[in-house]
């Protein structure tokens, strides 16, 4: 075999150049995104991925973070605990991401937190949830019941004279947590909860619950189901049975409401993000999304917009800390703010952020009419034991 023939020489030279280039090019900042590409969240996951991609593309076009390019690592958590364990192990220990920013079910989040603690990686949770989840590496930029429930219950009590409420949910952390809080809030305002029923997280047969609601005859109905399929099947079965009472859905997002067509008409919801919020930031955001994704655009919604803002919050925190080192980034995350499509977001209230909440009603054409806006609603003292 000829040694050092011209081809081998060229190969060696190319390899050496490649290595040199590696040394000169800066390591990208890796942001891990674990999201339910399959399972209960699979219907909203595409929008979440798009929001993340737009934020990263915009940041990279403006020079990246601290001069380094940002890279997204997207992993499927199957919308549940088992999948989240695999996803986070991959992100934290295999891909060694610098931060995890994700929208997940509460079951997935609870499974992920021990891995986050072991890996000591900053984690921004961008999904609304039942509250009181605390971890020294986690920040939350979406709403908690203290912010979301009050507008709905207050509106039903005042505008619809509702005294008796019926609560329906899926039997897991979010469903139980939301309805626990809702029950306490209703009772603190002088109302009464006349029924509380749960189905397993992937259940879709609400027959006996619908019949129970009919026999009890409440003034209003409030539900906290998992997103996607359980929401849709419950709404279809409620409508099918002819129930006409005011129905507040604590877990519906604009995109799902649109796909339900006339089944969703008349549903009440309370959200920190609605498509027709008329601000400069939201209009700019919507235009950028439409320009980037065109016909493939998945409607930005309550579950995908916080993801976009969270990437910018992470950028701000790293720039303030001057490094991606967790020990410095974590305190910075509690101080920085970002003015995005939902308004100003700053996670300075016990790892959570004050938000402007909008009470809306689904119209016959699928759009949401904003009935009232509540500004800077406080999340309350979610994590009294954390700095």
């Amino acid at each position, binding site marked *: 075999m000829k040694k050092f023939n011209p081809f081998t020489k060229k190969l060696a030279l190319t390899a050496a150049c490649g290595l040199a280039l590696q040394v000169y090019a800066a390591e990208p900042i890796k942001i891990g995104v674990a999201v339910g590409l399959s399972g209960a969240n699979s219907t909203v996951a595409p929008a979440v991925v798009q929001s993340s991609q737009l934020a990263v593309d915009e940041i990279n076009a403006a020079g990246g973070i601290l001069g380094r390019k940002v890279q997204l690592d997207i992993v499927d958590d199957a919308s549940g605990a088992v999948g989240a364990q695999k996803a986070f192990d991959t992100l934290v220990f295999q891909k060694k991401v610098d931060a995890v920013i994700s929208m997940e079910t509460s079951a997935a989040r609870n499974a992920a937190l021990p891995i986050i603690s072991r890996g000591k990686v900053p984690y921004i949770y961008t999904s609304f949830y039942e509250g009181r989840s605390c971890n020294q590496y986690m920040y939350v930029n979406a709403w908690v019941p203290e912010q979301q429930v009050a507008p709905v219950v207050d509106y039903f009590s005042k505008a619809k004279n509702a005294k008796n409420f019926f609560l329906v949910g899926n039997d897991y952390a979010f469903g139980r947590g939301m309805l626990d809080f809702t029950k306490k809030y209703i009772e603190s305002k002088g109302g009464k909860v006349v029924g509380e029923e749960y189905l397993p997280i992937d259940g879709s047969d609400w027959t006996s619950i619908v019949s129970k609601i009919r026999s009890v005859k409440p003034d209003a109905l409030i539900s906290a189901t998992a997103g996607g399929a359980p929401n849709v099947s419950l709404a279809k*079965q409620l409508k099918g049975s002819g129930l006409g009472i005011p129905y507040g859905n604590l877990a519906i997002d604009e*995109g799902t409401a649109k*796909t339900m067509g006339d089944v969703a008409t008349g549903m009440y919801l309370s959200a920190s993000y609605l498509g027709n919020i008329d601000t400069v930031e939201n209009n700019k955001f919507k235009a950028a999304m439409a320009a980037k994704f065109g016909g493939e655009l998945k409607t930005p919604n309550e579950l995908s917009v916080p993801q976009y803002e969270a990437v910018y919050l992470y950028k701000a925190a790293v720039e303030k800390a001057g490094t991606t080192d967790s020990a410095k980034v974590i305190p910075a995350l509690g101080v920085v703010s970002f003015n995005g499509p939902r308004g100003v977001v700053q996670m300075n209230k016990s790892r959570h952020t004050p938000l402007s909440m909008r009470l809306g009603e689904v119209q016959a054409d699928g759009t949401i009419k904003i009935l009232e806006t509540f500004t800077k609603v406080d999340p309350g003292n979610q994590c009294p034991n954390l700095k």
Partner: protein
Amino acid sequence: MILFLDIFTTVATLFVVTAGLMMIFGVMKIVNFAHGALLTIGGYTSYVVTQLKLDPWVSWPLALLSGAAIGMLVELSIVRPLYKRPLDAILATWGLSIVIGQLIVMTFGREVQFVDAPFSGTWPIFGVEYSAYRLMLLPAALAICLALTGLLNGTRFGVKTRAVIMNEDLARGIGINSGRIRFITFSLGTGLGSMAGALITPLSSVDPNMGLNWLVSAFMLVMVSGHSMASLLLTCLVFGTVQVLISTFLSPVLGGLAIAVLAALTLRIRPKGFGNG
């Protein structure tokens, strides 16, 4: 009264969903684990009908035909070569369900889809207003049961099929083309599965996983019932009633367990299940 309506409409739904699986299990002694995927195909057929702006009623026969067409392809390519290995055939149908699920995701996306229902609203019955569509499932289930029973008991094809069910080798010995019987019943079973998917669409959400929830219950029901449509109806009646009663008076979470637990108990006490052997 509402409780009775709940029970009967649930029984009807269970029967409609399970009939197709029963046809295949009875004749071929294999459990078609692609049944959940077929339910999903039926749901998406309804979605296509909505997209093409056709009359929603078209979705039922269209689902029947598309399910049957898929069944014919599957029988020829996957099931027939595994004829002597029923356990491998079961595994193959499970793999098929995964493939079908992913094909649906690639074609339609993961989101929940909106589908027009043939009709909506409520009907007054025995003094209460009840979901019209649920009520309509009762005559639908009865019609399917009668049609299948008539097919099995009143036609030449039915006689040959029953011979194959009883003893396939002997049937082939007297000249019955059991391969053709298997082909036709498999296609009929998949067609029914797909049509059931179209039938339950107005009650559930149309997404790539819609059929999976039903698969386990359908499997349990088929295991316990015998080999005739009438015994399947009886099994659905008993198990469906227990499920609704537990869901209503105890909790829906326990109700979801009802069918699985009952199936295990029944087979323990009476291994022949509800059938006559």
